[in-house]
C-alpha cells in the first residue's frame, strides 16, 4: 500500500484553515485489509519550532470488524483534517501506517521504527 498526503494548494494565507488529506492507496493487484486504528495522520509539525497539535487518529468501533477497511486493488481510503495556521510559516505534514499498535507515537512516525509499515512523503506547505 502507498500513503499520500494531499492539499488543495501549496501556498496558503494566514488565517485560512489548511485542509490536508492522508490517503491510503492499495497499489497492488490483490485486495488488502487496513485497520483504521493503525493509520496515523495527517500530523502537523510547524517548522517554526512551535509545539505541534495532537496527532490525528480515529475513534475506534467496539466491533473489531468495523475497524477493518477492505480495499480492492487501486482503491483509496483516506482521512481529511483541518488546521488553523499562523502567518509566515512552513508547515510540514506527516502520515504513516503502523504494522501493529504502538503506544509511543510521534508526529513523524512511531518511536519504535519496527512498528512502521509505510509512510507518506512529507507534505510541505507555505503560509504567507
Amino acid at each position, binding site marked *: 500500500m502507498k500513503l499520500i498526503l494531499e492539499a488543495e494548494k501549496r501556498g496558503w494565507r494566514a488565517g485560512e484553515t489548511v485542509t490536508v488529506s492522508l490517503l491510503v492507496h492499495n497499489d497492488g493487484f490483490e485486495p488488502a485489509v487496513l485497520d483504521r486504528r493503525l493509520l496515523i495522520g495527517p500530523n502537523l509539525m510547524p517548522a517554526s519550532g*512551535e509545539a505541534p*497539535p495532537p496527532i490525528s*487518529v480515529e475513534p475506534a468501533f467496539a466491533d473489531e470488524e468495523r475497524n477493518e477497511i477492505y480495499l480492492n486493488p487501486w482503491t483509496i481510503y483516506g482521512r481529511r483534517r483541518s488546521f488553523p495556521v499562523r502567518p509566515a510559516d512552513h508547515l510540514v505534514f506527516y502520515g504513516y501506517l503502523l504494522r501493529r499498535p504502538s503506544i509511543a507515537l510521534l508526529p513523524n512516525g512511531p518511536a519504535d521504527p519496527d512498528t512502521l509499515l509505510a509512510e507518506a512523503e512529507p507534505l510541505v506547505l507555505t503560509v504567507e
Partner: protein
Amino acid sequence: MARLDQSTEHRIDRQPPAKVDAPSRAGQFAALPQSLGSPRIAGENTIDRQAIRLGDERLPTAQRHGMAAQIGRVQGNRHLQKVLGSLKRNRGFIRTTRVTPAKAKTGTAHVQEGTVNARGEKNGLLTSDVVPYRFVSGGKAGLGNLNGDDTLNEAARFPPPGRIDRRQMADEETGAGPTEGVPIGEQPKTAHLQEGEVNEWGEKDGLLASDVAPHVFVNGGKTGSDLDNTVGGRGGTGNQGVGSIHVVAPVYESADPPGALSGAVRGGLTGGLIGAVTGSVFGLVGSVVGGLLGGLLGGAIGAVRGSMARAWIRPGTGTARVTRSYTGSLVGANGPTLYMTPAAVTRTDVHEELHVNSSRAIHDAHIISLERRIAQHLGQANALLAGTTKAEAETALSTFINWNATIDAFRNADTAANTPMGTVDTADLASPTFIRDYGPRAVGGVNYARYFDTPPGPAAGGP
C-alpha cells in the same frame, strides 16, 4: 571578628569613598594614645552621652575605638555593652559603610537579557519569548513513570498538580488572572533567626543563620484557563518564557586589610586571654604560661588575618528567583472548531506540571548551590578574607560566586528541557495516554472539526 578600621569600605562600582576626616592608617594609630588619655570620655558616666561621643563620625575611627576601649577598662565591659546598645538604638552602628547606589539597577525590567552590573554579572529578568506548550501524545494521567522507565521520574518526585511551593512567593511576572483551583500546599514558614556574636562595636559577627532555606522557586501552578493554544488561545502554555529567571546581581563590598599589627595585637590579646583562662586550671604559673602561648599564637593568627582584605555581598543582592506557572485549556468548546474533553484538559495540566517540575529540578540543580555560596558571604559579618587589596578580595569573591556561569547553566538547561519539542515534550510525547485528535465530531448537537481526548478516545459513532 572585630574590626578596627571601617572607614575604607567601598563598593564595587569604584566610586570614591565619601569624604571623611579620617587620618591615614599611621595617623589613626598615632591618634590612639591621645584618645586613651582623654579625661572626659570615661568620666562621662551617662550611657547616652558616651554613646553620642562614640557615634560621632567626625572623630577618627581609631580614636573612637580607643574611647570604647578606655570605657571598657575604666567602667567595665558590661558598661561598654550598655553604651554600645544605646548607640545602636539611637543611631545604629558606629560603622559607616561607604556605599553608593549600584551602577547596575537591580532588575525589574522585563527584558530578554537583563542588565549587567559593574562586573558584567547578569541582572534583571532574563527570559525568552518562547513558552512551554502542551505537547500532545499519550501518557499516564499523573506524574508517575511516563515511559515505563525513569526518564521523567525526577519530575515525578515533586508535588502533584496544584501544589504550590510558597517558600518565597512572588508573583508579578505572569500577569495572569486570578488563580483557579490552586490549593496551597504549604504554609509560609516563619524564619527563626539565629543571631551570631557581636564585636566590641556591637556589630554582628559570625554566622547569622535561620532555619528557613532561602530557596526561591515559585511554583505558581495553574493560574487560569483559556482557549487552547491550537486555536490561538493561551490554554496549555506556560506563563513564563523558557529559561526565564529574575536575578539581582550581587553587589560586592569590600574593605582594606585592617593591618597586620592591628591584627596581631587583637589576636594576641584574645589569644592571651583565652590561654590565661585555660591555663589557670594549673594555677598561677599555668595561667601565665597559657597566656603567653595563647598570646603568641593568637598574635600570629591575627597578623595573618589582619593583612588580608575582605569582601562580602551586600544583603538584598545576589538573588535569583524562578517563577513558573501555566494556563490551562477550557473543558468543552474551545471556540467553534475544537472540543476538549475533561480528560484531555486534565492531561494538558499534567503536561504543564511536567514543565514546571522540570524547571524546578533544574533550579534545584543549579540555583540552590548558588544561593548557598551567596549566603556564605552575605553581609560584612560573613566577609571573605582574600588578597591584600579590596580589588583582590572582590575578584576572589566574584570567582567563588560564579554568578554568570551558574545563571547561564540554569537557562541553558531549562531551555533545552522545556522549549517546544525539548526533552520534556519529547519524553511526554512518547507516553501512552496523551491527548490525540479524534477528528470531526458532533457534541450536543454542535459540530466540531476537532475533538481532543485521551486514548482510547470516544467510541466511534457514539455521542
